[in-house]
């Protein structure tokens, strides 16, 4: 394993060395070249692909080493790899490439942010929006000014090289180094699985502080250029912040609405649906960057706005495609970013100054802790669920810095900022410190402090029903109190959404589908697909479990195609609309993959039949002795038994719906007709009574011969 890694590293280095070689043609008469090398032609794409390929192989390698990935977070390992590669290149005499800021901001960052924004859990985010915004805006401002001012003070005290730092440069440095980085936070927090609240607090803060960082950065850069600051400039700075933040969000929202609207019409061209999602989001990011608005917030807003509508419109396969492509791209981006960080460390010109660097690290930690504690004290007065000391510690400790800080520093012009190298060195040190020390120790600390972990969320229809019930209840009670609070406004927003927006943006009849039903359908589909995966063979008869009594095992037969068609017809009669909705998720127009579709639909139906059978055994009055005579009569009399089945179903439901006729005095419940086919499906919880099925068995056998 280690040898493999070494070889890979070597290959990396060699590949890059070859980049610069040119083959020159010899003078004089040439023999016709049968085999020639023309590397320049493919150089660019070749290098890019090679980097990405080797980065992914690294990632693969880490997870094959069992203990390593548990102890050290991936980001650390990747940085180490980057360092090694950079060292290798340096040894070979070439200059290692530095992380180009344009490449970083335009190509590497957007996939990660889009992935985060598209899958942002909305409910915890909106519930904690106030807290997140406070941390992001006020916290970052506090950090920037505290670090900048304190650093300036230290530089003043210190004589020598540091004395040349003026206040603006220090403030600029403070603003760059104080922003919590979403990439680093994601990379580390993904692996520790803390509870949702803390995760969304730190992560939300890292996303939203981009607006503050952008404004501060441009502000101080402008001021440093101009030289002097007036009160008017400060006021403009504040205005700029609002413009940047709100402008970014609006740009994102506009593109999100466009994407949702476009997805309404894609039912005939399902293949390019994911492309629209990606393109509109990327355009939102780029458009925001054109005006120096916050591209990150635009991207988040776009993802959040378009997601509910797009998901209602696109096919299931497109949804899966989007999910996997986003995960893939963001994973690749993240890997590349960390490797490049490592390489840039080896490459870049460094100006090491012990005082500056150590003071910076110390100040960053101090300001973070003070900021979090102070803000939490204020915020807890307004929160329902207070943040405990443990929570505060994790929030403070999770403030990791990352590649954004590095790239921002890299963009500084050397003329205005002659101390750029020192800044870069200090920033790299801070990044390394936070990623290595804090990243590696946060997992044992989380275990030590017994912080609540993320609970495994099971898809529970009960919780969904009761959550919705609770929402309506709270909105109603607020109405009774006459109090227009949270719930009232949220209720109003939902109704507005349903009546106007959904009608425009969601095509077809799905615009009327309430959330509960789509949730239920999704859950059913998930269960059916799980069944599909677990029954890997098409032969369902093998799925009979040992619970089936021996005498029935010989009656398990393969289900013929006609049977399937008949089952389909019956179920369609009862479950028409839900069926159609499920269909829309599984149909695709790529290739005539009809067998695949039929099979999955059949299995979906089997699952549904199975579930009905289970339900009937749970929810049935054990007065089965009454019903078989009623059922047998119509069934036996009809040779085409299945034509009678629909009528059997109807008659049964009529029978049981008259409550008073239930002589046992139990509550009325509905009995679903038992289909003969059901005995072949895996039995989970109960067996039908022995008196019924032998008759049905005989029926079945009788009809198929």
């Amino acid at each position, binding site marked *: 394993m280690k040898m493999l890694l070494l070889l890979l590293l070597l290959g990396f280095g060699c590949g890059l060395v070859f980049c610069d070689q040119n083959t020159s043609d010899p003078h004089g008469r040439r023999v016709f070249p049968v085999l020639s090398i023309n590397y320049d032609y493919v150089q660019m794409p070749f290098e890019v692909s090679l980097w990405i390929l080797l980065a992914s192989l690294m990632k693969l390698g880490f997870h094959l080493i069992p203990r390593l990935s548990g102890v050290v977070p991936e980001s650390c390992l990747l940085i180490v790899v980057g360092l090694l590669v950079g060292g290798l290149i340096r040894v070979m005499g070439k200059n290692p490439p530095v992380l180009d800021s344009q490449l970083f901001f335009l190509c590497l960052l957007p996939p990660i942010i889009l992935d985060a924004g598209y899958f942002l859990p909305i409910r915890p985010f909106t519930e904690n929006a106030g807290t997140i915004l406070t941390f992001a805006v006020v916290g970052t401002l506090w950090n920037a000014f505290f670090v900048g001012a304190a650093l300036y003070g230290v530089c003043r005290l210190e004589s020598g090289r540091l004395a040349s730092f003026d206040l603006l440069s220090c403030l600029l440095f403070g603003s760059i180094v104080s922003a919590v980085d979403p990439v680093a936070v994601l990379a580390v927090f993904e692996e520790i699985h803390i509870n949702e609240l803390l995760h969304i607090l730190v992560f939300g803060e890292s996303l939203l502080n981009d607006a503050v960082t952008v404004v501060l950065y441009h502000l101080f850069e402008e001021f440093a250029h101009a030289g002097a600051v007036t009160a008017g400039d400060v006021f403009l700075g504040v205005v700029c912040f609002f413009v940047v933040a709100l402008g970014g969000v609006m740009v994102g929202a506009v593109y999100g609405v466009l994407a949702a609207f476009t997805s309404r019409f894609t039912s005939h061209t399902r293949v390019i649906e994911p492309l629209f999602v990606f393109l509109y989001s990327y355009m939102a990011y780029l458009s925001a960057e054109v005006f120096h608005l916050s591209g990150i917030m635009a991207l988040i807003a776009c993802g959040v706005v378009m997601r509910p509508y797009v998901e209602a419109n696109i096919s299931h396969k497109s949804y899966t495609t989007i999910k996997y492509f986003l995960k893939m791209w963001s994973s690749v981006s993240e890997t590349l970013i960390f490797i490049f960080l490592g390489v840039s460390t080896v490459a870049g010109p460094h100006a090491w100054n012990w005082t500056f660097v150590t003071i910076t690290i110390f100040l960053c930690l101090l300001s973070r802790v003070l900021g979090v504690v102070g803000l939490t004290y204020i915020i807890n007065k307004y929160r329902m669920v207070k943040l405990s000391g443990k929570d505060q510690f994790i929030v403070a400790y999770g403030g990791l810095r990352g590649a954004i800080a590095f790239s921002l520093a890299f963009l500084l012009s050397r003329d205005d900022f002659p101390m750029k190298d020192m800044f870069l060195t200090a920033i790299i040190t801070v990044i390394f410190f936070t990623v290595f020390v804090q990243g590696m120790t946060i997992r044992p600390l989380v275990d030590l402090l017994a912080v609540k972990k993320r609970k495994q969320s099971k898809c529970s229809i009960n919780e969904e029903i009761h959550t919705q019930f609770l929402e*309506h209840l709270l909105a109603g009670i607020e109405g*009774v109190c006459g109090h227009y609070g949270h*719930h009232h406004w949220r209720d109003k927003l939902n109704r507005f959404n349903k009546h106007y927006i959904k009608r425009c943006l969601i095509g077809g009849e799905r615009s009327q589908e309430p959330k509960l039903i789509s949730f239920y359908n999704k859950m059913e589909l998930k269960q059916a697909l799980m069944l599909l995966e677990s029954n890997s063979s098409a032969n369902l008869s093998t799925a009979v479990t040992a619970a089936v009594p021996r005498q029935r095992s010989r009656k398990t037969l393969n289900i013929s195609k006609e049977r399937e068609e008949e089952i389909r017809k019956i179920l369609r009669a009862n479950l028409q609309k839900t069926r159609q909705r499920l269909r829309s998720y599984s149909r695709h127009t790529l290739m005539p993959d009809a067998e695949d579709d039929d099979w999955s639909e059949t299995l979906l139906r089997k699952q549904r039949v199975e579930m009905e059978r289970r339900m009937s055994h749970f929810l049935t009055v054990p007065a089965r002795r009454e019903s078989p005579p009623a059922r047998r009569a119509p069934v036996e009399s009809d040779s085409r038994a299945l034509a009678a089945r629909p009528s059997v179903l109807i008659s049964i439901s009529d029978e049981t719906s008259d409550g008073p006729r239930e002589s046992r005095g139990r509550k009325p419940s509905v009995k679903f007709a038992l289909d003969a086919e059901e005995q072949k499906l895996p039995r989970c919880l109960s067996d039908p009574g022995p008196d019924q099925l032998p008759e049905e068995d005989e029926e079945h056998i009788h009809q198929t011969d």
Partner: protein
Amino acid sequence: MGSFQSLPDDHQYRTLSQKTGFSLDQIAILHNRFKQLSQNEETLRRDDLKTIQDLESNPIRSEIIEAFFDRRNFQKDGVGSVEEIGFEEFLTIMSYFRAPPHHITEEQREEMRRAKLRFLFNMHDTDNDGTITLEEYRHVVEELLSRSGALGRETAKGIADAAMLEVASISVGHMAPDEFYEGITFEHFLKILKGIEIETRMHIRFLNMDTTVLCK
């Protein structure tokens, strides 16, 4: 029950405050609202609540109104429902929606949780028999989906049945062939809603309310 003068009586407020846990200001505000709803009478009737416009578009309107008149919510072993309620009962119902105070012990928190879940349970269990049967559950789901157009009672039935099945498998696990699931008892209800932090979610911010400004 509990006749009040038109001027707030401090002593009565104080006893109410002790009983329900609201502060005196909150009680004064809620009393104003009560008087507004009941048109200055001393008791509130169902029709008074039906006049609230905000409740018009609420799908579970009738359940909410019914909950106010349900004796089980007033005291431990009440049965049946009443036709009209006084301010004390109104306040008792409202106290189910108070947020848990910051420093309470685990037992108190658990107690509050049980009380709130009991309130919810009573809303579903309309025939007062201690279990939520399939019919009642179906009714709940139908009500929830009732505002969403004619999507059919069958889907509602399907959802309710699936939910019931889930409760059964969570609470009872494996069942013998002859058993069947009677209905959700209060203990099972507690179990299935363990994932939702009821004591923090089921609350209204009574903190700053000026109901006289926002009418109806």
